[in-house]
């Protein structure tokens, strides 16, 4: 029995409808969010002018946060003296052909140094848990904290480990 052309088309359409969307490659979600967080740091890096003192940078950061703007990493910077912001993004080298998207593969260069502490470069990694959360911060069910002005969320476990 030979199917008439419309039946062939219907059969094809039905067969195609059985195809599920293809699984996104492992790491796509991580790479997207990593790139977003790296971009969030860009304004911070732009503020890190050599001529401006750390105290002044932190004051600016707090001002921005108080107005409800700025990346969440700034809150951590303001609360911990600056180094913590570097812990917001971890960069992992993923080899080509691993299925990971481009940004995840190519983000192997170190992130820009955002703040300097006492004339030294801030460490690449976030420091160990730093004790109680900054005064005034409140828990959120996200596992994060909310800043004293109630308008900015900090998503950094180190700040929250009391």
């Amino acid at each position: 029995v030979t199917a008439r052309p419309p039946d062939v088309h219907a059969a094809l359409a039905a067969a195609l409808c059985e195809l599920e969307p293809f699984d996104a490659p492992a790491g796509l979600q991580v790479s997207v969010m990593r790139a977003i967080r790296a971009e969030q740091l860009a304004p911070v890096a732009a503020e890190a002018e050599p001529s401006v003192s750390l105290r002044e940078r932190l004051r600016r950061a707090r001002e921005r946060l108080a107005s409800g703007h700025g990346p969440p990493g700034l809150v951590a910077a303001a609360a911990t003296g600056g180094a913590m912001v570097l812990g917001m993004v971890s960069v992992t080298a993923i080899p080509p052909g691993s299925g990971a998207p481009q940004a995840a593969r190519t983000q192997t260069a170190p992130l820009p140094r955002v703040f300097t502490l006492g004339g030294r470069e801030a460490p690449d990694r976030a420091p160990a848990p730093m004790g109680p959360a900054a005064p005034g911060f409140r828990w959120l069910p996200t596992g994060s904290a909310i800043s004293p002005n109630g308008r900015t969320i900090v998503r950094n476990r180190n700040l929250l480990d009391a």
Partner: protein
Amino acid sequence: MASNAAAVGVGTAVDERGADAARRESERFYRQASDAVLMRWAAERDDEMAFEQLVVRYQSRLYTLALGVCRSPQEAADAAQEGLLAAWRARASFRGESAVYHWLCKITRRKAIDSIRGRERAVALDEEAEAPSGGDDHTAATTLRVDLVDALRLLPTEFREAAVMAYILKLPISQIAEITGVPENTVKTRLFRARARLAALLGGV
């Protein structure tokens, strides 16, 4: 604003076990939020978790859409990533005039097309492309699936993306027309021709 208000209402200073429970509650909160609400939180509060939920929700479908344009899985993954990043950057410009998913589709498709144009891969396919072959050890259903996927890859871009959007992503004709920027009748014609081309490639099914 609504997210934080609700979250603050639930969250208090709690111990570790309470924090775990609260975290689970928060995750449920984001999972259950509508696309429009998640997008609003992302736009108004730079809420990465809200946007991440959209990524989780749609990454596979956007990847499939990109695959419908690019053909190469690696290129499709890059296009999907670029599309999602572009959507994050443009979050403040989302006006809610279309569904969030369709907006994401539009951006991802544009990135995928940019990708193939940028790499000079937008080459019209040979109309007499060889029919693909299936593996001997496959079941009949698996073989059909493999054949279909291979045959899809051999379609010209505009036919392939129409077929992917209509049959795999199950988007309505009107939405495909909006995303691709062509009239609905053109979409219908592309689908008809895609089916005819597939039928030829698959030897009449």
